[in-house]
């Protein structure tokens, strides 16, 4: 079992405030892992730490190489696609331009064209909206666009920050179905942060539960799902 991403004793700070105290986890290559926990537990901060968007201490390794302290752009270029909280749409750019920005760092034009075709196959609606200003898309469409932008980086690892946030249940199902396809077909490993624990445990094979910046439990999704104490106290269902 090769670990794609490994964090050990990860601490993170916003200014003087410490948001992560001691987070350790390992991500299996090809798998889907989910981070669960209440508001303020440190889920988003963990994703930001991986991408160098907050000040961190401790070790983060991608493919065994330390990436802590690197600039966000450099970590992204190593094959990490980050679908951020709030979707990060370039609202004034067209859908087409949103997708092309994401492929900005790639030189292989043919591969980019292939990935674009793949994106349109997953999300045909984006093809229909290609020349529309991205800010005018619906919330679900913008989430699809955010996932597509990450895909256009041709990532090995995708970090997803609450892709279900604020979306109608039907759209959420659709998006999660496609995330599963991306994982199995495009061979993209995923680290998923979700408020909706039931949904996340359905998709993921491993889960970590965070509480106030610490990992309090981890295991296979089925174990977490069946642990009634954890479910009641941390996952709220």
């Amino acid at each position, binding site marked *: 079992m090769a670990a794609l991403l490994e964090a050990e004793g990860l601490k993170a700070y916003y200014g003087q405030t410490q948001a992560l105290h001691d987070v350790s986890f390992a991500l299996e290559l090809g798998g889907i892992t989910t981070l669960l926990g209440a508001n303020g537990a440190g889920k988003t901060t963990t994703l930001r730490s991986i991408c160098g968007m907050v000040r961190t201490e401790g070790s983060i390794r991608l493919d065994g190489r330390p990436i802590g302290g690197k600039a*966000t752009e450099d970590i992204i270029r190593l094959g990490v696609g980050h679908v951020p909280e709030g979707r990060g749409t370039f609202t004034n750019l067209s859908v087409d331009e949103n997708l092309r920005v994401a492929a900005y760092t790639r030189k292989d034009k043919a591969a980019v064209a292939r990935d674009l075709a793949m994106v349109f196959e997953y999300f045909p609606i984006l093809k229909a909206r290609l020349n529309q200003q991205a800010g005018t898309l619906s919330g679900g469409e913008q989430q699809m666009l955010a996932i597509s932008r990450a895909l256009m980086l041709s990532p090995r690892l995708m970090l997803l920050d609450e892709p279900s946030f604020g979306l109608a249940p039907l759209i959420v199902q659709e998006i999660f179905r496609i995330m599963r396809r991306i994982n199995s077909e495009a061979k993209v490993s995923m680290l998923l942060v979700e408020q909706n624990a039931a949904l996340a445990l359905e998709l993921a094979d491993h889960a970590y539960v965070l509480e106030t910046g610490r990992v309090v439990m981890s295991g296979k999704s089925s174990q977490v799902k069946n642990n009634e104490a954890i479910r009641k106290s941390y996952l709220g269902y």
Partner: protein
Amino acid sequence: MEQLIQQIASGLANGAVYACLALALVMIFVSTDHINFAQGELAMFSAYLVWQALSWGFNFWLALPVVALISFMIGVAIERLILRPLHDAPVLSVVVVFIGLLAIFHSLAGAIWGHTIKAIPSPFPQFSFVGSGYIGPHQIGMIVVTLVLLLALFAFFRFTPLGLAMRAAAQNPASARLAGVRVDWMLALGWGLAAAIGAVAGSLVAPAVYLEPNMMASILLYGFAGALVGGISSPGGAVAGGFIVGVLENVIAYLGNLLEKSSGVYIIGNGEKLTVALIIVITVLTLKPSGLFGKVSVKRV
């Protein structure tokens, strides 16, 4: 009537230079939210570089691209070396830096080239044509060069990946980083482009106003007025604004003269052109702060 057409024509020519400066201001504003008060002095410094090249015997059209390139590098260097350490500094600190830069380039030009007025000959050929009574060859040249520059910039931002990355970085820096764009370098590039555009503006206006360290002081105000009229967040708007201000200042002065001639009452004339620019600034800021073509920025609270 003939005089009015003449005034409008020369207004368009001045407007071309204001448009360039307005564009340079907008370039830096959209990516950093700062108004570069030193933009005019940078342009003046570039104009002196052109003068230096001319006095060494180089052709204007050879000197201009080289000077634009040097200015580009000066702009990039300023951003990387001076403003980079101030990324998280309060606005006032940055403003002080801009004023410092203004003073530095002003004195530097004076120290190197002296404070006496120098002339740069017009790079455009003298010829007569239909309507040459209304507008001179240099004025037409200014308008044409500005329009070419604008088209080139438009094409750069619209059709090249680098231009797209710069737009993305200006609009949503966090997201741009997540697309692998080196946002810090995009800011430096924006500074470089602004300085290069300013260089063109400076060298175009120098033959019309004579070269001296103070030459850009009032022109920067007009450029600022143009940027505000068009919308400080909209490059296309800034250009339109530059032309509008150029024409407006002339037409208003003309109407003032006309009024004086017919009624003997002097309200406004050629001497108050700068006042007109300032009135425009105030009017726009009170009535429509986002400008004619600018986007109203809405913040969710």
